[in-house]
């Protein structure tokens, strides 16, 4: 309970304002292998995340039907907006870059409008690279018919490695 309240106290203002408070640095430099890098494009500042840091952020879990799996699967991970807040970056446009150099744009407003997560677990298990892991941007597709479209499926980058913020 205390943990949750503190998290909320820390997170909510960040979500609302995308403040520049560098929470990630407050958490300390990543001790494990870097799995995600947030790069603020104008300043060139980079914030690295290891899996443990991502795991410490509030987790969200939901099942969804997707084009990539024949049956609904459950995805778990921190909200993208929390990740951005933790990195202490602000901007309007994101550029998601995958391990294979796949790149796709996403407006920051998507992270506010929808509970977009950076999924790190599939059906409760970590995802290997060969299983489109380790990180997968997932929209809550089943929460709105609007999300079941090419546009949002296209923005759902798998094997996510870097997010550029502009």
């Amino acid at each position, binding site marked *: 309970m205390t943990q949750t309240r503190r998290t909320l106290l820390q997170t909510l203002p960040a979500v609302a304002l995308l403040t520049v408070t560098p929470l990630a640095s407050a958490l300390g430099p990543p001790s494990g292998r870097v799995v995600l890098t947030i790069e603020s494009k104008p300043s060139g500042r980079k914030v690295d995340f290891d899996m443990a840091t991502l795991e410490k952020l509030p987790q969200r879990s939901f099942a969804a039907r997707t084009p990539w799996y024949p049956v609904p699967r459950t995805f778990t991970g921190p909200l993208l907006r929390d990740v951005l807040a933790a990195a202490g970056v602000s901007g309007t446009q994101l550029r998601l870059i995958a391990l294979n150099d796949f790149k796709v744009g996403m407006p920051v407003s998507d992270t506010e409008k929808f509970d977009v997560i950076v999924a790190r677990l599939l059906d409760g298990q970590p995802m290997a*690279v*060969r299983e*489109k892991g380790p990180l997968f941007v997932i929209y809550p597709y089943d929460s709105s018919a609007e999300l079941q479209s090419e546009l949002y499926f296209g923005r759902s980058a798998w*094997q996510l490695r870097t997010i550029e913020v502009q």
Partner: protein
Amino acid sequence: MAIADDRGAVNPPDELVDTPFARPPNTKRWIWLIVAILLAAFAGVGAVQWQQLQLLNSTVLYDSDNIVWSFYQVEHELIRLQHALADAARDPGNPDRQALQLRYDVFVSRLSDVEPERTGRHFASAPIQTEMVARLRAFVADADAYLGPAPTQALDTAALRWLSGRLDSMRQAVHELALWGNEAIGAQAAVRNTAVRQQNRIALGLALFQALLTIVFALIVVRQLRALEARGQALEQLARRLHGARNDAEAASRTKTAFLANMSHELRTPFQGVLGMLALLRHGPLTPQQSAQLRTATESANHLLGLLNDVLDASTLEGGHLRLFPQPTSLTRLLDEVESTMSISAHGKGLELKVTRAADVPDTVEADAKRLKQILFNLMSNAVKFTDRGSVMLTVERGGGTTQRPVLLFQVSDTGIGMDRETIGRLFQRFSQGDDSTSRRFGGTGLGLEISRSIAQLMGGDIDVESLPGAGSRFTLRVALPARSAEVPPAPAPVLQLSYTPALQVLVVDDHSVNRDYMQALLTHFGHTVRLCTNGREAIEAAAQGAFDIVLMDLHMPQIDGFDAARAIRKLPAPAGRMPIVALSADAFRETREATKRVGMNDFLAKPVQPPDLAECLARFFASPTPPAPAAPDPAALIDPSRADAAFAALAPGLHAKMLACFFDDEESGAIALLLACLASADQTHTRSAAHAVRGAASNLGLTRLAETVQTIESLDTTSFAARAAELHERVRDEVRATHAACIRAGWIAPPAPHDPATT
């Protein structure tokens, strides 16, 4: 007075017959059919669009990650891995194990996207796909020994070369697979596009059909609205036409009523002339045959005048112009008058006449005496007319009501021919007279009862009838009349003042010869000298030349009419320019009277000119206060103008004169003759009954002296009667003649043939 209009104004207009009022019977069915088709079309379009949505959804869900892209990604990652492996083999000293691992993992992650179970939803797998995927999986199975999650062998240069070589050997085949995937997806897209196009075409067709139906529906609605509007207009027009037709009919009816009233009025003028002339003829030298013919002519003319008066009354009633003037009236006196007047005709037919009033009937009531008498005269004369033997009775009784306003029943019963039920039903209808044979036998307009009933209803009462064929009839006038105290105010001041007018020079102007002759006869008999002119021009010349005392001027004449002539005369020097001018006209409108005053005329006499009116008019201008020495018995004692005036008021115009004429004509055959005959034979019993009849009529007609004399005869005892019979015979005969002369002098009746040949 049925209105049968020749112009067909009362016929229904043609529109009534063939207006499109009837709704076409199958329009409704058509509308329902179209509604059903429209609904079906909507459903069809909806279904097609739903299908398209589904198609789109499925496309979106399962095609989002482009499969072609996946095939090329496999090829791309394979090449990248092969290069990485080849590079590492060339530089075995420092292999970037981590980079190799990433390339390998990414390559493996791509494989699942091209497996048949992943693409099978979109297109059937081909041997090339299954074979290739199997080869790739086999490679992964081998490579996992070096680069998998749990490597079992070291990745040395030989292994690198081996792996690189195997990938290289598959490059061309993977490229073929990518091309095949591209082709398969293209074919699949073509199929889907065809389906979409087909559905689009169906949807377009349905939309067109729907649009067409909507247009048809709109057209039908417009047509319906137009029809509705047209119907409304037709109805409005019809209403206007009907309204117009009704107005026309009413106007025609009014015009005809007015025409009838006017004609009746106009007809009376020449008729008065005819009657006057007949009266003049009667006193000339005639053979007995001529006398009989003259009598018939007079009766016919009198009858005709009565009919005209009826028509005039009826049209006045119809026009709603008849007004009642109720005033305190003595019933005793009124009934007395009715009795004495009717007794002449009743006794003439040998009928018994009885008039009785019940004790509880008030003597004085408020009523229009003239109209009440008119009703009673009508009922009584009908009773006399349709009764050949027996009696006619008038009884007055109380029929309820309050003391202040008793209901009075005036019952006229006879022992005549009676009527059946059917006849009674028609009785009060206009022109109805029992049956045709009755009307042929008894004559009359058939208006009398209708007039009587209308007047009765105007008084707030009604007339009922009970009758049986052969058993007589009983007509009952039931009317509530307010009771008044017994004090009846004195009769209105007599219009007729008996006075003496000196002999005058009279200029009579009239374009109608009958009227001229009539006026000449009247004036000559009054002792005046007459000059006749036929038009205004002659009148002006005569007035300028001769010395006249007065001009009697018709108003409507050809060339110069009465108004212009009067104006011209007024411009003459005195005394001709100052003499009185009296207008004569059948047109009694106030406007006309005022017009005569404006042109300087002094008085107005309504046509037909009644002798008393003429006498009174002349007296107004020339009466001398001292009468000339009487050559005959005092006329004032012979006749009583106030009494006679009541008779005038009670009777229709001309009727008084007619009754007087009748009364005196009876000198040879009627009641007077009977009385004289009885006196001559000294038969007291018969003398009394004859005297009674004569007295009633004489007193009612205002012949006071005669009435008194006859009353004396009635009251004589046997001895006196026997002694004085001869003397009384003489006296009655003389008084009859003297009274007759007095009546003529007073202008009450037309004079006999002029005695002085010089004035003709």
